[in-house]
């Protein structure tokens, strides 16, 4: 059930109406859990069992963790949670990849082993809710969090439908307190939530799917590219993935807000980032902060010398890449970010923070960051490593083919959309969306948002899934 479908519109109207009933809070929470499971079942009904299993395991593990002082037992409990959660993730998401990679490794050593093809369907959102449940158990293990008092609250935390399948990745410490007091729809919350949904849908349906996806697909579906083709494709995908995922996050935050719940921000003008570390503070914020807190810091972070810091950065980004998909091109994408982050860290030793605020350096720095991330997206989007390598080559001029994949008007529209996107990010890099919207005179705001909504209705499209659903 996609946010950009009529079905979701009808589903949400029903859920929102029932949420307003004057019923006890536990009953309204039960309704939200049931609605969330129905939402999840809309993709593939049997997979709700997986969601339920993950919820029960971490609920039991966390309660046991809180009760025991024995360090060995605590470690065993944490290990059990990691084994179950990561085991499910590894089996469903990485099973074929691991088997194929093992087969390749055997072949490298002169042996021969044909891996069986599991062909298992990937349960949508498994990467997201696995990270949520893991962070809960780890926080309880670290004694940074007391376990949820009610199973209902915990089930709602894991399965809350607005963010269940593609984030934002919510921490229990942020969500569970909201379950303790009755959350009601307020007129302001409903209004702001609806506006966020309109902006999110516009980003997804009009900008990502209609304007940019065709230009990007034309390049990543081709087998030869001119220099201009490769750049237009890379820029188009850069915009497409931002609008797609940011659009989803805005819809999720808006839908949750309509119900009275608060979800964390996931994007903050990432294409105006000054440096890659700044980029990761602005892009998929809830994932990058998860990786920081549960991977980078436990690995030692930057506390054990320069070399260990670079190693930790690289490992974190490689695993972050792998989280996105079971293929080597995602690993390379993560590796590129790890490399860029390491180089940036090295350079920052010689540049004082004050200097980075000089306008010339700010413009150069943000532009370079944008171009580096755009280049890295090629590895993320391409069908395989070979295609990514060849498109990369074309971007750097190693192509004798004339650029012919796009009409001139397509190139111009991609360029205009991307200039508009980067300029908007640059101008709003220190402001929230609410602060920006408030600055716009109301008549203009109403007109712009109305036109966005009309465009969403009129474009319609074909209910394309969000890119991050596959992760």
């Amino acid at each position, binding site marked *: 059930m996609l946010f950009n479908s009529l079905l979701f519109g*009808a589903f949400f109207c029903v859920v929102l109406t029932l949420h307003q009933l004057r019923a006890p809070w536990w009953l309204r929470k039960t309704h939200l859990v049931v609605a969330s499971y129905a939402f999840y079942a809309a*993709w593939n009904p049997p997979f709700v069992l997986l969601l339920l299993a993950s919820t029960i395991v971490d609920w039991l593990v966390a309660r046991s963790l809180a009760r025991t002082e024995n360090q060995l037992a605590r470690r065993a409990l944490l290990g059990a949670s990691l084994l179950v959660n990561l085991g499910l993730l590894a089996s469903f998401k990485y099973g074929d990849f691991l088997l194929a990679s093992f087969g390749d490794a055997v072949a490298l050593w002169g042996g021969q082993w044909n891996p069986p093809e599991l062909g298992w369907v990937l349960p949508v959102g498994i990467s997201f809710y696995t990270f949520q449940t893991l962070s809960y158990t780890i926080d309880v293990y670290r004694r940074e969090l007391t376990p949820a008092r009610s199973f209902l609250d915990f089930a709602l935390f894991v399965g809350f439908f607005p963010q269940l399948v593609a984030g934002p990745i919510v921490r229990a410490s942020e969500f569970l307190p909201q379950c303790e007091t009755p959350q009601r729809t307020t007129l302001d919350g409903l209004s702001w939530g609806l506006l966020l949904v309109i902006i999110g849908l516009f980003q997804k349906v009009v900008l990502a799917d209609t304007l940019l996806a065709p230009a990007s697909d034309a390049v990543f579906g081709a087998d030869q590219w001119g220099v201009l083709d490769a750049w237009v494709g890379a820029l188009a995908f850069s915009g497409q993935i931002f609008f797609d995922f940011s659009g989803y996050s805005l819809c999720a935050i808006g839908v949750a*807000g309509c119900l009275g719940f608060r979800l*964390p921000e996931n994007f*903050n003008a990432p294409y105006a980032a000054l440096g890659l570390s700044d980029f990761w503070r602005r892009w998929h914020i809830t994932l990058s902060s998860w990786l920081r807190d549960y991977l980078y810091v436990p690995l030692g972070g930057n506390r054990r010398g320069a070399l260990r810091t670079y190693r930790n950065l690289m490992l974190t980004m490689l695993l972050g890449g792998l989280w996105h998909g079971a293929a080597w091109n995602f690993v390379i994408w993560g590796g590129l970010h790890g490399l860029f982050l390491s180089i940036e860290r090295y350079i920052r030793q010689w540049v004082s923070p004050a200097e980075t605020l000089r306008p010339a350096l700010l413009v150069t720095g943000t532009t370079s960051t944008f171009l580096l991330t755009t280049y890295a997206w090629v590895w993320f989007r391409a069908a395989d490593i070979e295609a990514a390598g060849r498109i990369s080559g074309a971007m750097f001029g190693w192509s004798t083919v004339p650029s012919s994949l796009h009409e001139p*008007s397509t190139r111009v529209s991609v360029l205009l959309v991307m200039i508009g996107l980067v300029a908007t990010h640059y101008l709003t890099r220190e402001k929230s969306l609410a602060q920006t919207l408030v600055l716009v005179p109301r008549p203009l705001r109403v007109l712009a948002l109305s036109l966005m909504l009309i465009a969403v209705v009129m474009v*319609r499209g074909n209910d394309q899934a969000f890119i991050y659903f596959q992760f």
Partner: protein
Amino acid sequence: MTKRSSTFSFDHVPAMRGTAARVITVTMVLLAAMELGARALDYTASVTDDEDLLCLQLERVEEPGSVVLVGASRIRAGFSADVFRERYPGRPLVNLALAGKCPLAMLAELADNDEFHGSVIYAINESCIDPRLRSHQRGNINYCEQQWSTSKSISRRLRLALEPYLALMRPTVGLANVIQSLKEHGTLPEHDYYQMNADRLNDIDFSEKGPELSKVRVARLRAHHRRNKPLPVATWLREARLMDSYAQRIQQRGGRVWVVRFPTSGTFWQLEERAYPRSQYWDKFAAEASAHLVHFADLPTADLACGDQSHLDGRDAPAFTAALLDEIEKKDGFAD
């Protein structure tokens, strides 16, 4: 609870209730104006066909007494649901025809379904009886078998409830189409010359586009015949027997299969007849088939001219359907 480091849009909810109310009002007003404008410009509402709509129909084949239409675009243009319903009130009509695709795979699917005991009107033309085209419709069937879900079903029903009433839901007047037309031709998109109903049957009006489309259809058929030489009679009959074996399986369960050659006319029909002369192909098969065969040329409506030489005009479809149903009733009728 100790940790909390994220920022939240809803920490400081801006006062936007006025904005939201105005946005919804302005949008509703503008959309209503656009709907009226589209209607004033003669754009009409219509159901839009897609894979999900086919799956909705496929769900219904096991309804008792169902009459299932299988074929391609000709049966969708030439069969009138109104005439059928008038004559058989309450009898389920299921339309599994897929435009542009030869239908053998769909017939095989019905033959494989032991729960199907209904009747099939199987529209076929001679060039579709070809071993290379056996699985033309298989992809659509696979979609319904493997990807169809309750949520898709509800979603499609919701759209189906709106499409017949809102011209703006028609892809022709979708924003992307309008922009493309303005960019390429400097005009609004051309009007569609057909309307589709919830049965996936088309009501086509060829009065304006007929002559132009006739040329296109004839040119395409000539090109097709240049690329694909007609099958030798023996090969064709072998393939027709395979088709008949599926019909036999349905009939053995108490069902009926009516194999119907829908009308074509003019040069188009002459070219088809030259490639697959009726006496050497259709009639030979009719002599040995266990299914009931009906050729349009044998019906009282034989001289109906097709609007584009390949499909019946919506105004002629009722007469043809009535003649076809007469013929069916005269022989074995539909299964109960």
